[in-house]
């Protein structure tokens, strides 16, 4: 399979909240910090906005890893969106792994607008993890 050839690169989707993590990514960019190019950023208003279907649809359409990131607890632009997201995703991650999804395929973190360095570090770490897991096979619709 082509996907498993030596130069396979994972496709990763990052759902970043507009107020912290997206700004964190922006800071990483303007600070010229290098990080892996495997990540595709999707900007969302808040981590609480992220519907579990976004994650499942990503996996279904052949994305190898999903990262979700929002403001640190207590720093949500909408006050409590990230707290709700935290409860929701704790259950979702556990449920998906119960059905056999590999641990690490979906990841969650908090990145603030001032943490450009942390953003680069998280992306590097997630990319590394997904590379060791290999191409996603679970939940993929019409695998090639």
């Amino acid at each position, binding site marked *: 399979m082509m996907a498993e050839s030596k130069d396979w690169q994972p496709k990763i989707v990052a759902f970043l909240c507009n107020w912290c993590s997206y700004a964190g990514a922006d800071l990483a960019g303007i600070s010229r910090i290098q990080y892996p190019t495997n990540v595709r950023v999707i900007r969302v208003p808040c981590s609480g906005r992220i519907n*579990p*279907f976004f994650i*499942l*649809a990503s996996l*279904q359409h052949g994305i190898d890893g999903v990262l979700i990131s929002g403001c640190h*607890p*207590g720093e949500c632009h909408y006050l*409590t969106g990230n*707290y*709700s997201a*935290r*409860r*929701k*995703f*704790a*259950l*979702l*991650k*556990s*449920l*998906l*792994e*119960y*059905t*056999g*999804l*590999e*641990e690490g395929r979906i*990841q*969650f*973190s*908090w990145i603030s607008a001032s943490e450009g360095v*942390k953003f680069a*570090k*998280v992306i590097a*770490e*997630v990319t590394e993890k997904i590379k060791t897991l290999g191409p996603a096979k*679970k*939940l*993929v*619709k*019409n695998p090639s």
Partner: protein
Amino acid sequence: MQELTNMIREVARDLLKQKSVDLIIGFAQGTMPLCSTPCFVRQDDEVDRLIWDSFCENNLAKYLVKRSNKIAIVAKGCDTRAVVELIKENQISRDQIVIIGIPCQGMVDRRLVESALNGKEIQEAEEMNGELIIKGKIFEKVLNRDEFLCLSCKTCTHRNPVIYDILVGDPVTEIDTKPYLDVAKFEALTPEEQGEYFSREFAKCIRCYACRNACPLCYCQECFVDSSKPQWIGKTTNASDTAIFHIMRAFHLAGRCVECGACERACPMGVDIRKLNRKLSKDVKERFDYEAGLSLEQVAPLSTFQPDDSEDFMLHP
């Protein structure tokens, strides 16, 4: 059982005579043996249709949603838990319903009885002192009812009604089940084994949505499977779509599922639907110390939060 039947009829008759309710939702004798059927009584001369036996498996709370009149409901432990959740979710108001609570001994699973008879046709079934007397054309068999309980009844932790206005019958002792032992066992398997098990289960699914329709807490006006804008998942039995349907169906019940097992009993293909729901119930209990349908005051776990909720699932670089 006959005693309980008589008591239910008496209570129902009084309620209708005093005009304290417009409708009574209970069970009536079904057209087939081992199968009681939901029944709606509006006149006091109809109350003799009401019965109580070991085959009243449906969760009657399903019929409470979107009603404006005053209703009495005959409710087992799990039915009352579903009623509590529906009240909390503003689907029905507490003063609109009269709950006739019935301590439950567990309901008998018709399919288990049928499989014990190797396909012989059952024509009649009677119950007496914890025994089922099954009669067919050329046979008669006596079975111990406790061996044929529904799977959800075997793991049930709340047989007595958690909320009621009138209690019919004496409270029963709760069974001492090892909570979520089955889930813990499955958690210990490797991702490959887990994935294989669920692919096998989901492959049976024909996407009839009987599980959703039977669930007392699935009442959305437009279900995500019917939505076309956006169309979240495909409508065929494609393996990926079916898996996502089951995962999301269970997830929508996170912290709400009262484990009545209605989904699994409704399933014509025998998919192990409760496996996902029980995993969520266990997680909700462990993480948020919440069990669905036990209290009208406790806020639903996904409607609230604690600033110090566990972040053990997150990445901490």
